[in-house]
């Protein structure tokens, strides 16, 4: 929900006269929502501003993100960062559903629904 939340907030702020830039890694969610300015960093979710402890990469990404404030001249302005994560294995693995985990996911879902129901029953 992180990318949808900031996309909705960016739209709200922009509609109230505050220019916004998003730096993020979920291209489809942000573009589906529709935002003014977006730097897309094609990394695993969690580190849109660069790999951990890589100060030089982080600063390049943040600097490029800020540049969109002055280079965008229309909404839905998306720029792709050139930075690379280094391997692509994470793309396949994230939220993967396969025959090995299907039964476990079904149990997780049951557990989650039970916890939500218990929370709703609590008097406080």
């Amino acid at each position: 929900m992180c990318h949808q939340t900031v996309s909705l907030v960016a739209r709200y702020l922009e509609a109230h006269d505050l220019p916004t830039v998003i730096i993020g890694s979920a291209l489809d969610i942000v573009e589906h929502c529709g935002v003014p300015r977006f730097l897309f960093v094609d990394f695993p979710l969690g580190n849109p501003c660069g790999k951990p402890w890589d100060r030089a990469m982080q600063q390049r990404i943040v600097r490029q993100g800020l540049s969109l404030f002055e280079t965008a001249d229309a909404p839905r302005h998306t720029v792709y960062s050139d930075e690379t994560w280094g391997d692509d294995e994470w793309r396949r693995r994230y939220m993967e559903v396969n025959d090995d985990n299907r039964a476990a996911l079904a149990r997780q879902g049951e557990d989650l629904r039970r916890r939500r129901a218990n929370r709703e029953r609590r008097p406080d």
Partner: protein
Amino acid sequence: MSDRKSDSAPVLYMQRSREYYEAQGFERAYRYAHHDTVPFVRLRKPLAACTLGLVTTASTYPRASLEPRKVDSGPTVPAPTRLYTDDLSWDKQATHTDDPNTFCPIEHLQALAAEGVIGRLAPRFHCAPTEYSHRATLEKDAPELHQRLLEDEVDVVLLVPL
């Protein structure tokens, strides 16, 4: 249909999560926010003269996964050495969030302010609570974030989701 056709194409998260939650037994597919029109305003002064506000989806305190969430704020000086992200959905297999500058780049923004790229970084950063409900974000959290950013007298806002 699988989105795993190319090893290097951007992940299609909406499709991926739909398949994942279906496997968990959730019957109704989540409806992601979609808009045909997009607001857009230009800067009123150069970026080098602007005060920049920063919004993250991390939290300044540990939250349980089902705990009600609220807008939260913290000082940018000194920059936080730790922020809380365990209750959020990010790729916990591929990476970690031990380095806050990977998602809340306060130290870099301070450096870029010192360099003159931005005028200054606002004295607070703000934490946007993530909600499934579009309405909760638009009618409760976005106005609260806007109010806090106005109090900080920001001219532009950088938003970074995990």
